[in-house]
């Protein structure tokens, strides 16, 4: 095709209105043709101004959090992968959790001969495995728990096909003395899915129970020994 024929596509190219093959062909020409490049640049500036005609929408604060996390996330992912792993990019909190898991793995390896630590290590390893298995599966989903969000930022990573889930606790206020947080899976009756006390650092809590059949997850404050049924309204909850 000649420059003349290619130049006919400039407007459609700038509007992202070419079919994929046409786009590739035009871009190949563009690399070789300074005349077309100059016109693309000029028309692109005009097209970009069209965005100003759009009634502005305000993005949520969580989008800003995701953008602010890009430098951290990109560092965790680089150097080998040329394309970011989508869920890592999409969920910076998870990326950090995954990094922690990796760090945990390193610690475990260095301590492997220390028999006295075997018990706790086995437990950590099980958690580590569970997190990695859940993370690796494309059917894995994430949801942020909502409600009294000033109490904490908690994300549930779950895979109903595998009946597996972990809670990523980014921040959580310390519960009153003698009390702890209890997790509930929303089955026809709320079923206890474990207890936890928040730590200073971001951490993950494995969730046990019938995740496959559940309709959601909630967190309540309960006495340290746990309750058979929730004794208060959930502070944070997510449903699916």
């Amino acid at each position: 095709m000649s420059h003349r024929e290619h130049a006919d596509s400039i407007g459609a190219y700038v509007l992202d209105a070419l079919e994929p093959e046409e786009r590739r062909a035009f871009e190949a020409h563009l690399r070789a043709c300074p005349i077309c490049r100059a016109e693309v640049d000029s028309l692109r500036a005009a097209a970009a101004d069209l965005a100003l005609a759009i009634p502005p929408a305000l993005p949520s604060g969580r989008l800003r959090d995701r953008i602010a996390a890009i430098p951290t996330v990109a560092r965790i992912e680089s150097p080998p992968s040329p394309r970011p792993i989508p869920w890592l990019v999409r969920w910076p909190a998870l990326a950090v959790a995954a990094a922690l898991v990796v760090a945990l793995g390193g610690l475990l390896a260095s301590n492997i001969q220390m028999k006295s630590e075997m018990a706790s290590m086995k437990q950590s390893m099980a958690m580590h495995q569970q997190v990695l298995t859940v993370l690796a599966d494309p059917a894995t989903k994430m949801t942020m728990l909502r409600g009294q969000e000033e109490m904490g930022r908690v994300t549930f990573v779950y895979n109903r096909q595998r009946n597996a889930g972990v809670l990523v606790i980014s921040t959580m206020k310390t519960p009153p003395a003698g009390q702890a947080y209890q997790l509930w899976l929303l089955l026809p009756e709320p079923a206890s899915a474990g207890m936890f006390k928040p730590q200073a650092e971001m951490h993950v809590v494995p969730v046990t129970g019938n995740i496959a059949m559940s309709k959601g997850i909630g967190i309540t404050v309960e006495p340290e020994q746990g309750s058979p049924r929730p004794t208060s309204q959930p502070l944070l909850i997510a449903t699916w």
Partner: protein
Amino acid sequence: MSVPAGGNDAEDRRFIARIARGDGAALTSLYDRYGAMCYSLALRIAHSVPLAEDVTQEVFLAVWQGAGKFDPERGTVRTWLLAMAHHKAVDAVRRAEVRRGQPADEPAEGGDEVREPARPGNPGMHLGDPVAEEAWLTLQREAVQRALESLAPEQREVVTLGYFEGMTHREIAARTGAPLGTIKTRMRLALQALARALRSVETDAER
């Protein structure tokens, strides 16, 4: 354009230079300036909050990874960002359509699916004073709308369907009944006319 502030490209280029050196705070600053604008554009095209958020994140990830390759000779930072946002939004919608076999009206699966109402905001501009920012944006919006209205109706149609609806020239040909090939030519002429109209707005304001 017509009013000096906002599109302060020299300042934007300094942000890009800092990002290229690995300065994460500069990325957030650039987002504070243009994030809402990119997001509004993506939302207009994708009609889905999660998709628009993903697109905006992809744009700023691309900025983070590609700031060193930004070429100021080819346009302003704002144009670069908005062109990426448009391209990625159109791509995301087309991928979603292929996957679903229908237009992507529903938010993508997974996670946070709460739709948030679009509230008016101040995409990008930092005049320091909210009233001045709002006024500046309104002026800009009116200038662009006037420029759009100055186009011949068939030119305005292809720009509107292509830019705001993210349709391909084939889809537009099918929709409007115009012969294939005509739309491409019309798009080019329309953007050339738009560029001229926007330039005349600029000169008017500078007088």
